[in-house]
């Protein structure tokens, strides 16, 4: 079963701890992150998302980010983190 977690609009320093805690609640199952409301993605939350994706993958679960706002996609591209977040179509689900 895939759970859905809606990401906050502002993913900055303050959002990093809550994001990790929220992701932890879905540990052990596949999770789909809804990034459609994200207006700002900062470096610290990016770290949480990338680390989470690795952990989920190692445990044999999926962590997908879908749907995504334009701001989220732009930020991911700016950070060169699309592959790390599994946003590239060909890499979807793969660990970069």
């Amino acid at each position: 079963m895939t759970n859905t977690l809606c990401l906050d609009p502002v993913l900055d320093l303050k959002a990093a701890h809550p994001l990790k805690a929220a992701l932890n609640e879905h540990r052990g199952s596949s999770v789909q992150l809804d990034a459609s409301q994200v207006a700002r993605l900062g470096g610290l939350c990016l770290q949480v998302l990338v680390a989470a994706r690795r952990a989920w993958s190692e445990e044999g679960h999926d962590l997908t980010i879908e749907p995504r706002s334009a701001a989220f996609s732009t930020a991911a591209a700016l950070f060169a983190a699309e592959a790390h977040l599994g946003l590239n179509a060909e890499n979807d689900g793969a660990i970069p």
Partner: protein
Amino acid sequence: MDELEEIKITFFQECDELLGDLESGLLSIDAGATDPELINAVFRAVHSIKGGAGAFGLEALVRYAHVFETLLDNVRGGKTDLRSELVKALLRAADVLADHVAAAKQGGEGDAVSTAAMVEELEAWISGGPVPTAPAEEVNIEPNEDGIVFTPIKLSIPEVDEGPKEQAWTITFQPMDELYSKANEAGLLIREIERLGKIEVELLDDALPTFDSLDPETAHFAWKVRLRTEVPEERIREVFEFVEGHCSTTIVREAPAPTATEPAAGPDIAAIIAAAQAGDAQAAANSAPSEEATAIAPEPPAASLPAAAVPALAESMSSRGAPPPAPEKGNQATIRVDPERIDKLIDLVGELVINQAMLAQRVSGHGFAASSDVGRGLDELEQLTRDIQDSVMAIRAQPVKSVFQRMPRLVREIAGQTGKQVRLVTEGEGTEVDKTVIERISEPITHMLRNAIDHGLETPEERIEAGKPAEGTVRLAALHRGGRIVIEVGDDGKGINRPRVRQLAIDRGLISADAQLTDEEVDNLIFLPGFSTAAKISDISGRGVGMDVVRKSVQGLGGRISISSKPGLGSMFTLSLPLTLAVLDGMVIDVAGQTLVVPLTAIVESLRPTPTEVKKVGAQGGVLAVRDAYVPLVDIGRVLGFQTVDTNPAEGVVLLVDSEVGGRAALVADSIHGQRQVVIKSLESNYQQVPGIAAATILGDGRVALILDVDALVAMRRRELPRADEPFIEAAE
């Protein structure tokens, strides 16, 4: 308060300082200063505002600042000549930037129309300046004597100076925790780099721990950005200026690809630099040409190497580790403190002063001699209390620069509106005065400057006709004098038209037609309420627009204002204000059983007159003979209504005071207690305004004492007396 909000407030405070630096830098350049550091400082100011604005997502401000900054960069790079028209344009651009900052502070955006116009002007300067290019000379082609026609053809000659060439740079940066905690973002840095040219970004995630061991607020990611750009290394480094100390950065220029005519002979410069930065000189010497530099230095590299300059490398390496030349401002160690905390401290010190006075009074009441241990201890305590008070007041003291630096813009705007040419000269900007005073002098200064330009200065045509330069000068100066701050606003205009001012005063019923007034008294008529309205006197050479309002607000500050004027040469307003509104040195006196305080700054001397020195004039008035002069007597008790009969000056004490309204006066009191520093407590905020009284204080015995407003008191007395054109003289005879 939200942490981000607090940082934002700090950002806007910094913006105010930076805008001040920007304007003063440009004004210095406008005045002919040629120090290249000035244009660098101006550039840094705009750049810093842009950087901070980016962190808060103030896009409109960033966009505008970017264009402004680009032009400034061209100027400092020598691409654009810094001629006079350009400096004027830059000053206007600074005004628009200030508008943007002010709008952003209120949560809005700067005016789109003025921004668009300014951006267009700036861009015109960036692309070579708005100067029309001269048409190409036409060449007459005629056959020479052999009948051969030479036709000119255009040859493209390779430029000797190739100018800036696109280069590739590898920028590696790793944000530290502080970068994020200071509300900065790695993404903003990448975006800033992107503004400089084409980028390829690589996320370096090797240091990222597992999800379980990840502290979400610890920075682990680094980025490697490959940038292709024409801008110099300096510009790239400036991207990281805001995050200095919060981000490990290396910037390495990639070696140009070897060409057929220029084989790669030496070692790869980029690799040598990287090795040098990593601290391995030997490796630098042996570096292989293809080695890529990826080292992340713990500190931003100190030395920037010139283009492919191998000979300079040794020198560069030897300077490794030296701190980069920090901008001067960075050396000032300052802290930002909430003003409320300082106000609270000042209040507490005020209470301490009162308490110390009470203690002294009680001790003396118990019969301790001043020379006793207790007496000496109290003296020391008093000295210490005073030192603490001075030091605390010094914390709140600010240079008047913060007020003065707003004035050049005002002057430009009024000059623009009136069509006059004005040069503003400021002096004594570093003069310090208490924040409470600073906050309230801006308005009177603004008013006086407006008056000086609008009514004091002539039009360029009139000036030329009068044999003066077309550009008028307005001088704004601040200085300390006699424990007060003096602000002077002078102009070299035509001065007050006294016959006209006198006539206006007569027309308005302010003076009688036959009143005998000195020049000074005529000049001071402009301060009378109801003397003028802007519409009616804007066509005369004098001043007077709302000067009564100015005087009122100055008096409200415990200050005085006076004017001196010379026909044809100009006028000068002089404002004298207390340095602080918190404490006052005063003389404690007794009047009709009341304890009052007279500000020491107003007192010239105190004396006990002999009966022969007192001359009665009329039924109520009197004068005191003081060294060959007669000074009007002012009975404090009667003017304030404490008593109905005048105190005999010969039985009391007289304080000679200087007042702005009526010159020197002799205040009559019953006795003097002594000199004391008192803490001012506002009467208006705690009770209500009382004529003749400036404020109140609490004395050592806990009683409230009123502080006299000497000028108001003298004015009250003058109003009480019959006027010169009324039957007063007859009554006196």
